[in-house]
């Protein structure tokens, strides 16, 4: 099961908007984090995804395991979220 979903994004990035709209459409609750504003979150995103592009979607499972998805990839999101 999915415990938590975080979306690291920037304010004007079109792929970020698409990713967030897709999550909403699929009724997935997520924390919307603007890495342009939140410096700590920016560091977390870079550390976890090993890169500096947005969006990054972090899926935390109940067992504590994490899946990091770089970019808006419907296929990967579906499998990570068990949809």
């Amino acid at each position: 099961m999915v415990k938590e979903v975080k979306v690291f994004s920037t304010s004007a990035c079109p792929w970020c908007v698409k990713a967030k709209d897709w999550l909403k459409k699929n009724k997935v609750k997520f924390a919307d984090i603007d890495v342009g504003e939140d410096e700590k979150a920016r560091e977390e995103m870079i550390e976890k995804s090993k890169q500096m592009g947005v969006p990054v979607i972090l899926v935390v499972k109940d067992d504590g395991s994490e899946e990091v998805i770089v970019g808006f990839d419907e296929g990967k999101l579906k499998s990570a979220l068990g949809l």
Partner: protein
Amino acid sequence: MYETIIIGAGIAGITAAIYASRKRMNYLFLSNNFGGQMNIAGEVENYPGIVKTTAAEFMKVLKKQLDYNKIKWKQELVKEIKKTGKNFVVKSNKGEYETQTVIICTGARPRRLNVPGEAKFAKKGVTYCAICDGPIFKGMVVAVIGGGDAGLEAVDFLDNIAKKVYLLHRGPKLTAQKYLVERVKNNPKVEVILNAETKGIYGKVAVQGLRYMQNGLEKDLKVKGIFVEIGRSPNTEMVKDLVEMDEHGHVKVSVQCDTSMPGIFSAGDCTDIHEYQYIISGGQGATALIKAARYIAGGVRNGKNNIKKN
């Protein structure tokens, strides 16, 4: 057999699809993503009827318009187009379809510098979308490469974000529109470096800097972000053996948006119009579709155009 297959879902392809649907044509609308370069674009302020919006919002409205017209867009990557007699076979990653006409609206992608380190540090400091990744470089020293409109728009966008922006341009003079050049020249945060040819990008885990040649001397610039804005390359590989192109691979079109191959029409940033404006691509998309419909009907515009094979 389809009457037309529209390839590409940027503003050119979307406009063509709207016209195809309203003409009740038997058509297919294929693209590997929805929106094309709108996915890496910022504000839209020069589209008649829309005072100001973002590319992301604009795409949402366009999607709504497709739904309203019951237009089905299929996410398929077209790999090949082949001529069979008078018609064409379009091969995608999901199927093969026969059609009387094809509308190529495949757009363009950001051009690469093709220097050492660029690929290694892509998304690790090197980016092709200032509007997307720019805010990540808050408070840092960055470089924008390219002195055209896109480059100076990126500088403008980074003004509120970066600590300092170097603008590197290959030529002796910035080529962007006047108002953009004035804005950059009056900005104390921006340092313009002319006659600068980028030679390489270096770093460890992420970018630490770049090297460039200026007047025969190799120089070094310590930056954490590199925004590459040196123009675009057309996505026209799939038709390279079918239609006449210019030296950069743009499909040559006439004012009718037809090509050197009767039955193939083209619109938008993949053509040799070289303007990269939503309104122009949209207008060409409508033109291409209407002319394709006339071609099918055997009308006066029967594909004999003014684009000659070399």
